[in-house]
């Protein structure tokens, strides 16, 4: 590289070489560079303006372009490729416990009012949780309940069934099956009145009711 510098003392580098120099300087510079600055940095006898013109032409129609910024020059992405400068990331997160419980209650007890969900969960249901499930399109509003206040009810959607691979919400396993699958571990004490099976039946019954409502 040293010989190139020396050579320039006697005569200017060839045109193509000057173009390479402008290219390298524009590429590496942290800010746009004026023609005067280019000339100052290039070996004696160079004509930065001419080299720049060649370079601009070379980059015509390329993925990047040589553009004028004020009275300086810089290399920039071609405007039609700006879309490449964004990186879309998709993050998959698990539903919160509150959301999945609320969803489960809606699926098993639909149509169900917010008050009913709260009664079953034993805690209040935040607006955000319901909104999230609505946004996911896993639940939607059902008919209003014909009780005082005419509260809205929630039901699960076709998207919900698709996501969980269910033909209908009736296919959700009842408590009996959940227990058989080992999902219910806390057995009530023997002789305790509410028989495990009964509750399952109950849930099922409630469910089919609701579905009749639906159709």
């Amino acid at each position: 590289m040293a010989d190139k510098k020396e050579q320039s003392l006697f005569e200017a580098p060839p045109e193509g070489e000057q173009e390479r120099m402008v290219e390298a300087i524009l590429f590496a510079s942290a800010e746009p560079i004026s023609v005067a600055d280019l000339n100052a940095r290039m070996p004696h006898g160079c004509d930065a303006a001419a080299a720049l013109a060649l370079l601009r032409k070379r980059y015509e129609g390329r993925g990047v372009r040589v553009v004028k910024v004020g009275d300086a020059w810089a290399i920039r992405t071609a405007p039609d490729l700006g879309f490449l400068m964004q990186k879309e990331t998709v993050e998959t997160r698990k539903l919160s416990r509150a959301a999945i419980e609320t969803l489960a209650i809606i699926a098993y007890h639909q149509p169900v009012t917010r008050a009913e969900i709260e009664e079953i969960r034993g805690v209040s249901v935040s607006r955000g949780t319901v909104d999230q499930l609505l946004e996911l399109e896993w639940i939607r509003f059902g008919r209003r309940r014909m009780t005082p206040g005419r509260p809205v009810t929630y039901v699960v959607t076709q998207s919900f069934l698709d996501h969980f691979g269910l033909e209908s919400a009736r296919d959700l396993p009842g408590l009996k099956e959940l227990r058989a699958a080992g999902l219910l571990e806390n057995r009530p004490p023997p002789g305790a009145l509410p028989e495990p099976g009964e509750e399952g039946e109950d849930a099922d019954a409630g469910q089919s009711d609701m579905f009749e409502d639906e159709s």
Partner: protein
Amino acid sequence: MAEDAFEAMDVADRLAAEALIVDVDGFEGPLDLLLTLSRTQKVDLRKISVLQLARQYLHFVEQAKALRLELAADYLVMAAWLAFLKSRLLLPPDPADEGPSGEELAAHLAFQLERLQGMRDAAARLMARDQKGRDFFVRGIPEDISRIRHVTYTATLLDLMQAYARIRTRDEFRPFVLDRDSVFTMEEALERMRGLIGYAGDWTMLISYLPEGWEHDPVKRRSATAATFAASLELAKRGAIEIRQDAVFTPIQIRKKAV
């Protein structure tokens, strides 16, 4: 082999070795010193005379001692090892001796020196390469990549079922209590009798103290009887009542103890 091992170190080597002593702090340990010493042999490292090298090193250490230079322990350890190696190289191999031969040890030392030299050459070639930020450069105005983050939420059927199971189980799960519908406790019996006993001045049948409605259901009756009997024993113990029974299996009677 023993003979040519005795060849004297020539004067130039000796001088070179002595010059090294002054510079002892400049060495990175015994191996570095050995490598430097080996250069005085001006041969390919693979053909180096380890015996001669050992002598050079030992000479170096002696000189350093004579000059009262403080030598680090590892230099002395190497000196001891090289003295051992030297004796192995000079003496005919003892067939009873189990350890590696002097030649093997010497070959390994030569290998270590060659390897160190190899790495030094490699390091020099590496550093002589074009380097980023010195010879070639990166883009001066990198463009920001805007990140668009999409969050999707997911849950499996299992999550759903587990959640439901969790809720339902929570309902069923309460602290363990016996179903007490048919159990009359001694405490309850005590409470009941304490209230009634004041009125009865004379002997009364214990059975008459059973709570109302417990006399007919056999299960309830059994429990109430047991509790009432236990309570009467307790009261008798406290000296509040007296108990009597005429014969085995005849009715038990109680009365308030006269004060």
